[in-house]
C-alpha cells in the first residue's frame, strides 16, 4: 500500500476512572499501541469481544477522543496536529455510523433535520434536493423526511444514520457495529446496502464488529483485537487463523448447518479485566498453547504479510 488513506501509528489510549475522596483512581489501557493503515477503497474489519478496545480505536481514528499518544494521518495530514477549526472542516471527509440506531438520532429531530445537520454544523444549508437524494441512496422514501425517529423501525433508523454519514460525501466511514442491535433479516439488508454504497461511491470503510463470520464476509482485511492490542491481521477474509485466539473465535462461530457441527473445544476462562492486565501475553491465561515465555513476555506483532502476535502461532 503506497499511499494509505488512513495511517494510525502506535495509538495508545489510557482511561482514568474513580478518583476523588471516595474511590481510588484506577487507570486502564483501552488501546495499547495499535498501528494500522487503510488503503483508499479498502474495507478493513476490526473484530474482538467486548472490552477489546475496538470502539475506542474507531473513535481515536476519527479523533472523537484524543489519543494518549500516537498519531493518525488522514490523507497525509496528521489529525492530531490539526486546530479545532481545521479538524471541523476535515470532518466533512470522514463520518461514522453508530451501533445503536435508537440513540444515535435525536428524538426531537425529523428525518429532514437529521440529514440537514451535517450541513448546519458546518454553517451551511443542505443543497436543494440533497435530502431526497440521500434518502434515495439508502433506499428510503422521501415521504419519511417529516417523520420522527420513534415513528420508524430500527432498520429504517439505521438507514437514516447511514444517510447522515453520507451527507457531506465523505471518503471514509467508520461503521461501529452498525447491525449489532438489528434483527438478522435487517442486518443482512444493511450489509447489502453498505456493500452497494461502497461500490457506487468508492468509499473506504473501517468496520467494527464482534461477529467474525460477518466481518469475514464483508471485509477485505481483518484486524483481530484482544484487550486493547492487535493480535493478528488476516490479510484476506478467508485466510486461516494463526493466533490461537483467532482460532478460538472461529471455533465459537456456528454455521447455520447442522452438518458442520463442531465438537466444542471452547476455550475456558474469561477475558481478564483491562484494569489489571497480566504480564506477558494477555491471552496466555486462556490459551491452550501457552508456555512460560508467553506468561513472562509480551509478543510483538510480526512484520509479515500475515502479521500475528504470538510465540507459538498455528
Amino acid at each position: 500500500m503506497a499511499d494509505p488513506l488512513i495511517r494510525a501509528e502506535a495509538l495508545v489510549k489510557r482511561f482514568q476512572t474513580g478518583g476523588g475522596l471516595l474511590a481510588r483512581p484506577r487507570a486502564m489501557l483501552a488501546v495499547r499501541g495499535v498501528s494500522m493503515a487503510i488503503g483508499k477503497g479498502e474495507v478493513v474489519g476490526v473484530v474482538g469481544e467486548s472490552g477489546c478496545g475496538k470502539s475506542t480505536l474507531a473513535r481515536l481514528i476519527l479523533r472523537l477522543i484524543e489519543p494518549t499518544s500516537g498519531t493518525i494521518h488522514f490523507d497525509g495530514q496528521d489529525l492530531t496536529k490539526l486546530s479545532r477549526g481545521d479538524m471541523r472542516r476535515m470532518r466533512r471527509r470522514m463520518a461514522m455510523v453508530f451501533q445503536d440506531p435508537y440513540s444515535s438520532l435525536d428524538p426531537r429531530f425529523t428525518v429532514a433535520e437529521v440529514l440537514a445537520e451535517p450541513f448546519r454544523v458546518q454553517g451551511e444549508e443542505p443543497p436543494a434536493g440533497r435530502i431526497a437524494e440521500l434518502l434515495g441512496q439508502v433506499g428510503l422514501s422521501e415521504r419519511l423526511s417529516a417523520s420522527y425517529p420513534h415513528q420508524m423501525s430500527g432498520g429504517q433508523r439505521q438507514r437514516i444514520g447511514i444517510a447522515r454519514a453520507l451527507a457531506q460525501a465523505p471518503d471514509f466511514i467508520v461503521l461501529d457495529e452498525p447491525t449489532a442491535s438489528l434483527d438478522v433479516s435487517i442486518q443482512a439488508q444493511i450489509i447489502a446496502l453498505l456493500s452497494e454504497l461502497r461500490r457506487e461511491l468508492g468509499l473506504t470503510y473501517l468496520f467494527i464488529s464482534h461477529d467474525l463470520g460477518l466481518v469475514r464476509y464483508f471485509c477485505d482485511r481483518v484486524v483481530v483485537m484482544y484487550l486493547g492490542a492487535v493480535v493478528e491481521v488476516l490479510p484476506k477474509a478467508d485466510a486461516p487463523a494463526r493466533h490461537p485466539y483467532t482460532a478460538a473465535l472461529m471455533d465459537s462461530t456456528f454455521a447455520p448447518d447442522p452438518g458442520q457441527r463442531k465438537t466444542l473445544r471452547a476455550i475456558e476462562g474469561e477475558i481478564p479485566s483491562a484494569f489489571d492486565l497480566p504480564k506477558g501475553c494477555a491471552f496466555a491465561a486462556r490459551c491452550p498453547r501457552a508456555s512460560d515465555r508467553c506468561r513472562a513476555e509480551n509478543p510483538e506483532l510480526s512484520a509479515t504479510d500475515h502479521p500475528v502476535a504470538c510465540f507459538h502461532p498455528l
Partner: protein
Amino acid sequence: MSLKGTLNSIGRALRTPKGAISGAWLALVVLGAIFAPVLTPYDYDIQDLPNAFAAPSFAHWLGTDEFGRDLLTRVLYGARTSLSVSVLSISVSVFTGMVLGAAAGYFGGAFDRAVTIFVDLTWSFPEILIALILVAIIGPGITGTMVAIAVAYLAQFTRLTRAQIMAIRSETYIEAAKSLGARDSFILLRHLLPNSLAPVLVAGMLATGDAIILEATLGFFGLGAQPPTPSWGSMMSSGSALLFKAPWIIVFPGLAVAITVVAINLFGDALIRALDIKTRLREA
C-alpha cells in the same frame, strides 16, 4: 419541542378525566383572577367595618373578613398575587436553573463541582427555611417573597437540568453531532437543551404548586404581600387569629390553595403521561 407538539400534548392531557377536571379548575382560577374587577361588585380594599365577620350569605358568598371586605372578592384578587408571584418566581428559577445546570452538566470540571456543592447544600435545607432567611435579608413584601421562592427552588431545577444534560450527553446522537464537527454551542442549544426541556418544564409546573404553598406560608408569617393587597397566605394569616370567631376567613383561602395545588399536581400528572416523558426518554 415544537409549539405544536406542546399544544398537542396539552390537548391530550386535557382529554383525560384527571386533566379535564384539574384543567377546568385552573382555568377558572386564572380567569377569576384576570376578570376579578368585572366579576364582583366589591372592592378588595374598601373596608366596611360594621359589616365585619359576616358569615357566608347571598350577598357575600364566602362571607366577609374582619374589615367587612367581601371574601370572595379577596380570594379572587388573592389569586392574582398568589399565582403571579409563584409563576413568576418559578419561571425565573427554572430559567436560571437551566442555565446553571446545563453549563455544569455540559462543561463539567471545577464549575460543575462548585454548582454541585451549592445545589447539594441548598437542596438539603427545607425551602421554607431558605425562604425565611432570604426574606430576612431582602425584607418582607412581594419582591422579597419572589426572590426567596426563586432561590429556594433553584437547586431543584439546576439539579434536574444537570442530570438531564448528563444523561443526554451520553446519548449516541451527541457523539454523532460531534463526529460531524458540531461546536459545543451547537450541541448545547440544538440537542441538549431542547431534549431536557420537557421534564424540567413539567417539574417547574409541579413546583409552581409548591411555590403557592410557600408563598402562602410566608404570607402566614406576615412576610408576604403587605396589606391591603390580598394574597391567599396573608388572608389566612390574619384569619388564623380569628379561627374561632370567623372560621370562613381562613377556610376559604386555604381551600383555594389546596384545590389549586391539587389541580396543578393532577394536571402535571396528566401532562407527564401525555408527553410520555419517561417512555420517550427510554426510547431515545
